């Protein structure tokens, strides 16, 4: 594992790697034994049975993989290109930041359950709904780390650029772009499994072939080997993709992270709450106009394409408004019970594990592949299985949300911890400071911007996870309300639920942002410029 190797101390050769490699081997042996003991439960397939299935159905699986991988790859390129373009726009024209961020966030918060069928109607038969869903699943997780990366540089570099009389474009090209590359890599790595998941969910909207289509078939047919074979292939591809990006990045990122020694800036920008409110109102208005315009431009039929006014009516003046509000609030309560603990657990475990890997590099050999694999297993294949193993109560859903949140946090924190400036570490070494001292005093402060970036990204990601689980496995909460209202043609309710999910995600994001400003104001003021 390239990322793992880069963390390991250079001196750790000999028996250490062999011990580290034992972890996954033991895991596979345990899995095989457990599966053989539980054959009657129809939950777990043994690795040997999965391999046999793959061997016997190699043609079917490779054709399906080809289709899904192509769509995921096109979506990956489109989504990440959009992310880079948006981040560049913000860097060149900082005044646009709030609007761009607001729109980007809002579109990312639109739940797949609702966007899928709309995309199908817009694009008709073919691969485009899958590609667009893959792109939508990745662009935001690249955009946010990029925003951080474009600022992760000593402020005197920017001063230097301006002292030569050059503007923001030059600063972007010569200084910010280079500083942002490690963050871009983190974003691209997180994108790999997300793109694959997006393409698979896209196939639920009526695609002819692909891994998502086979997943539905396997679940319905109670074909345990097929379900696990699909999960295994999807995981292997996502892990391979992730590792490949890491390897490519490692070839080109030889430099030590730059020293960030910015003078604390007491005048943190923002300009008070009054300006914030004005900007918020402005962005909200823009969003409503864009929503309305989108429906008009595409000429979508008002039977299923509901505008802002329809939604406002549905929850205020319509004859069934009280029932609608009640349905939404009940569903919201059900969803929050899973969402909030899962989110917090995922963040905590992700950050802790990243610190543990830095402190005890030996465990990277086991922790990294397991972490990547856990996150790469497409949630649509695991949701029913995890819920079955952990019960239909809160535990199963909370774990799934935590798994979705955990991985981006882990990757981001790992990158953040590595940003600890080498020269400062040297100073600590000179004073013979222990690893714990260095962790607390250098690495954790260096990690905070990345942790907050991950915490923000994870607000919509965890909402996505919880609604998908509710839709496919538990059948309650907002995810189920959306699926149900689509099948009953209650599109007023569907769009109301979408609006509610989007608004709450944005608010959650904003709350994390407020916390971030307070904390980073102390530890990483260069981020607030």
């Amino acid at each position, binding site marked *: 594992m390239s990322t793992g190797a880069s963390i390991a101390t250079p001196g750790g050769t000999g028996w250490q790697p062999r011990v580290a490699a034992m972890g996954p081997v033991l895991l596979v042996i345990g899995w095989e034994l457990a599966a053989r003991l539980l054959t009657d439960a*129809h939950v777990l397939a043994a690795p040997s049975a999965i391999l046999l299935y793959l061997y016997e159905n190699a043609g079917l699986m490779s*054709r399906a993989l080809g289709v899904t991988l192509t769509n995921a790859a096109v979506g990956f390129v489109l989504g990440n290109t959009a992310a880079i373009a948006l981040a560049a726009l913000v860097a060149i024209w900082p005044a646009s930041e709030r609007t761009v961020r607001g729109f980007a966030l809002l579109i990312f918060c639109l739940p797949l359950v609702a966007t899928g069928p709309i995309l*199908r109607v817009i694009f008709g038969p073919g691969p485009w709904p899958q590609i667009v869903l893959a792109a939508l699943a990745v662009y935001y997780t690249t955009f946010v780390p990029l925003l951080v990366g474009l600022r992760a540089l000593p402020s005197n570099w920017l001063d230097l650029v301006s002292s030569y009389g050059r503007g923001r474009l030059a600063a972007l090209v010569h200084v910010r772009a280079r500083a942002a590359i490690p963050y871009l890599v983190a974003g691209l790595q997180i994108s790999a499994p997300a793109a694959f998941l997006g393409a698979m969910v896209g196939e*639920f909207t009526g695609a002819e072939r692909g891994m998502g289509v086979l997943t539905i078939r396997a679940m*319905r047919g109670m074909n345990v080997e097929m379900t696990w074979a699909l999960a295994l292939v999807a995981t292997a591809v996502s892990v391979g993709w992730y590792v490949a990006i890491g390897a490519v990045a490692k070839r080109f990122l030889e430099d030590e992270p730059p020293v960030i020694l910015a003078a604390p800036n007491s005048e943190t920008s923002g300009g008070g709450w009054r300006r914030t409110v004005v900007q918020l109102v402005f962005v909200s208005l823009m969003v409503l106009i864009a929503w309305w315009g989108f429906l008009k431009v595409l000429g979508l039929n008002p039977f299923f394409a509901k505008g802002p006014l329809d939604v406002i009516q549905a929850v205020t003046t319509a004859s069934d408004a009280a029932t609608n509000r009640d349905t939404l609030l009940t569903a919201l309560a059900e969803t929050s019970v899973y969402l909030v603990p899962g989110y917090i657990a995922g963040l905590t475990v992700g950050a802790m594990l990243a610190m543990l890997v830095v402190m005890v590099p030996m465990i990277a050999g086991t922790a990294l592949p397991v972490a990547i694999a856990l996150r790469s297993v497409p949630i649509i294949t695991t949701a029913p299985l995890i819920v079955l193993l952990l019960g239909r109560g809160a535990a199963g859903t909370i774990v799934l949300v935590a798994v979705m949140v955990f991985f981006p946090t882990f990757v981001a924190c790992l990158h953040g911890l590595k940003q600890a400036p080498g020269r400062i570490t040297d100073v600590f070494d000179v004073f013979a400071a222990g690893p714990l001292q260095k962790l607390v005093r250098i690495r954790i402060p260096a990690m905070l911007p990345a942790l907050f970036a991950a915490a923000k990204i994870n607000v919509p990601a965890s909402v996505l996870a919880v609604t998908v689980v509710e839709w496919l496995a538990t059948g309650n909460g907002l995810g189920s309300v959306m699926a149900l209202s689509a099948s009953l043609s209650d599109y007023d309710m569907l769009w109301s639920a979408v609006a509610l999910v989007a608004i709450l995600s944005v608010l959650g994001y904003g709350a994390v942002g407020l916390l971030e400003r307070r904390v980073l104001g102390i530890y990483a003021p260069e981020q607030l410029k």
Partner: protein
Amino acid sequence: MNKLQGISRRHLLSVGATTMLAGSAGLLSPRRAFAQSQVSLQLSWLHSTQFAGSYIALKNGWWQENGLEVSLLQGGPNAPVEPPVISGTALVGISAADYTAAAVEEGAPFKILGVAMQKNPFAIASLAENPVNEPSDLDGKRIGMALANMPVLEALCQLNGVDISAIEVIPTQYSPQPLVAGEVDCLLCWETDLPVAMTIQGVDNVTMLMADHGYSVHSQTYIATEDSLANRREEIVALMSGEVRGWEKYREDTDAATDLTLEMFPDAGLDAETQRLQAERQVPLMFSDLTDENGFGWWTDETVAANIETLGLLGRTVTPDLWDRSILEEVHGA
């Protein structure tokens, strides 16, 4: 409805291209009576023997004979049928009376043109050692089902005088696994879906068809908009006559229909045994004395009245004019 909204740019382009092609073909083969027009049929689920009658019609060129180039659009768990039909992407869609009634309540101008499944496929599946053979057996059982189907269970209980509060509902989705694992005692599912999967996996199970206990909701119904019925009547008649021929052929030999399905969709991950059993099991749902007498897809005032009653229990108010038999009458020459 604004007519223009129903016509997409793609549609205009394809119509233009077809007209041009047909024009040049006409020069070469003057026998061809009219141009091939392209239409789509929106299926309600993934490709499988559930739609084998349509595949037979396609494969044998029975639509082409009547000047139709038909694309079969696959459905899926996140692919509602109504939006493509109302927006004109599909000329006809395969829905069910309860979904169509819900859409009509929301203002969609749909009509039911034909009924493929005379008997609703909803069933209660249970394990042979702890069977549910009668609605009264549900008393004290844990039932696994999508919460979305709660009104269905309520209707069944009401029709058969069963106390619903004595049944524990556990939400499950898309899998027979909770029943096999003993997490629930029975499942609310389709007769032709999860029970078939269990039988193939060697799980001994029994089913109770809800249609045998008063639950009358036409399923796999063909729907189109009023606008299409008025303006694209010939195409709809041609489409439905191909469907009727296809399904009659299907009934003669379900194994051949299964073979054709597997041949046409090698990438769909279909299991031959499962498909064969599913194809057999749906025959008694689709064909009855009524269809023997009047032809595939038929209904009478009595079956519609029964539907209206059950739909009422599901909270849907509908009138008999949701059903429009004129297309079938033309197809069957009645």
